[in-house]
């Protein structure tokens, strides 16, 4: 007899119980701790923090554990938690020029003030599976050297002195917050950058890649990529001055883009900008390319119809929590609508068959 989706309540409870068991896996294998994920899966933690728009390595690690390693699910968990938090204050803009850099490279200059610092990178590793890791070997400590307190100026500021690159004039207006206000199009650059930095890494990567392959080409060089810690300062009204409340790790990428001038601008290099939580350099580089591609209008370039130039296309489809929700919701019951379609198709077929028969 008719069962359909009866007993939904018990089914949900049982599904959750089974899920919890599957998440834990074989109980004879020791359980992962949140601290282990935070320390040893750090790049996953970084990605979850960046796309979750919440800098908290412990919560991100917990979300990864709870989501069984499904990073989009983890981003979703973190966002759903973030949305319940009160907004206490807006920080001062972080000063990435004063960053304590772990990594800082420029692809446009062989050497420069502050030097090239490779830092912990996969770049020059050979991608050979290391079977020693399977045996859980301990790692010998990396060689150390005393750090110099010498400043590490932005490469862009060096270029800027000659007027070779477009000036980036500081804008102290408080940027809109797309987690508190609905997205409005056309979006200002601040809002675009905000949407891209929390957008899906895979999507932003593909958009950036498409510009390199000719769909909205921007001729980008990595002027500078820097990764490290910056101080976060907040005004405390009771004190009347700003206080450092902590440090966050950031990846910042600035691209130098060839620009031969347009109707409105003289020939000059232009900028693309990427800033992402944690060591997330792929995302930071991709972000700076997409940012630059989206600036076509402001720089008087032509719209070639490339997806990466299309603000509405990029911004409306970058968010993986929105995308995955809408994609996956089609597995929810739709039998009422399907029934309506069924009736319609039957009616259309009946009409057509009647016409056919009449013709014969």
């Amino acid at each position, binding site marked *: 007899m008719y069962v*359909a989706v009866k007993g939904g309540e018990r089914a949900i409870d049982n599904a959750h119980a089974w899920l919890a068991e599957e998440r834990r896996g074989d109980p004879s294998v020791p359980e992962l701790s949140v601290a282990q994920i935070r320390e040893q899966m750090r790049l996953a933690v970084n990605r979850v923090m960046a796309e979750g728009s919440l800098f908290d390595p412990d919560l991100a690690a917990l979300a990864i554990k709870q989501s069984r390693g499904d990073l989009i699910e983890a981003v979703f968990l973190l966002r759903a938690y973030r*949305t319940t938090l009160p907004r206490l204050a807006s920080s001062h803009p972080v000063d990435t020029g004063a960053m304590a850099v772990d990594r800082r490279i420029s692809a446009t200059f062989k050497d420069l003030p502050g030097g090239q610092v490779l830092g912990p990178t996969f770049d020059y590793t050979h991608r050979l599976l290391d079977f020693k890791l399977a045996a859980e070997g301990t790692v010998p400590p990396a060689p150390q050297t005393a750090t110099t307190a010498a400043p590490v100026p932005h490469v862009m500021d060096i270029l800027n002195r000659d007027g070779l690159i477009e000036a980036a004039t500081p804008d102290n207006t408080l940027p809109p917050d797309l987690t*508190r206000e609905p997205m409005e199009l056309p979006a200002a650059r601040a809002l675009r950058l905000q949407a891209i930095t929390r957008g899906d890494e895979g999507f932003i990567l593909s958009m950036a890649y498409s510009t390199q392959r000719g769909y909205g080409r921007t001729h980008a060089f990595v002027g500078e990529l820097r990764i490290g810690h910056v101080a976060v300062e907040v005004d405390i009204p009771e004190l009347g001055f700003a206080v450092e409340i902590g440090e966050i790790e950031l990846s910042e990428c600035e691209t130098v883009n060839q620009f031969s001038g347009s109707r409105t601008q003289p020939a000059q290099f232009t900028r693309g900008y990427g800033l992402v939580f944690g060591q997330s350099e792929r995302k930071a580089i991709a972000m700076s390319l997409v940012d630059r591609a989206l600036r076509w209008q402001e720089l008087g370039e032509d719209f070639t119809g490339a997806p990466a130039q299309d603000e509405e296309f990029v911004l409306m489809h970058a968010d993986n929590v929105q995308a995955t929700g809408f994609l996956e919701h089609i597995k929810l019951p*739709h039998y*009422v609508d399907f029934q309506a379609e069924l009736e319609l198709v039957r009616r*259309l077929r009946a009409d057509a068959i009647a016409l056919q028969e009449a013709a014969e």
Partner: protein
Amino acid sequence: MNDATPEPAYNFAYLDEQTKRMIRRAILKGIAVPGYQVPFASREMPMPYGWGTGGVQVTAACLVPEDRLKVIDQGADDTTNAVSIRRFFARTAGVATTTRTADATLIQTRHRIPETPLHAGQILVYQVPIPEPLRFLEPRETETRKMHELEEYGLMHVKLYEDIARHGQIATSYAYPVKVSGRYVMDPSPIPKFDNPKLSDSPAIQLFGAGREQRIYALPPYTKVVSLDFDDHPFTASKAAHVCDLCGARASYLDEVITDDLGGRMFVCSDTDFCTDRQAHGKRGRLSAPISGGAA
């Protein structure tokens, strides 16, 4: 029926008061301009986009402790997502819940309007996936907003006309576009077009929430809602040409249920409350259980 005690760690109905105030402002604007899509700062909810986050936020903003909540999906109270959302509010708001349409003060729905006529004082909250009726004719939000501003709905009429030219009838069976108070063309959410006539002149407040798309719109009580059509091809509210096999109802929307792999099927009311109520009053269909009547 009150399935749980409220969760003390969260504010009443989950959202903080500031957020609820922001949503209520959007709702009030929506009621003031019937059929107009009001942008609102949709929040991430603890269920995925596409599961009814817009409806859940509207419900959260409307709920008061005295409310009695009903949640349906596909017309049924016991589908998994309806159960999940009802539990969510039982847990975070501690409100009473019910499956009876007549007893509910607030009904959240996905894809149906209850068969039992609504009465004054009730609120019906729809979950909306794509609030923009013009979206599949014009993908750009910046363009469709302009079209609404200018009341430029020619494209929609052309689409409906092309349907008639090609199929002899308008080939839209759900999410059938309507015009509200002679002004805005509105997407009624993916309800079957059978339900469209119930949108008009309803004594209840009808609110529509689209979480992912960040839009809220509304129909105040007794608003004139007209399904788009042509004089020579008038709108018809269609359903399967059968009667309910459990309660014998002739005028309710039916689900088709495959009963075997030999082409056997039965038709039952999609509105489970309507169907069980009729059975409780002794109404019988072709396949109903002899006496107890507790089949669906």
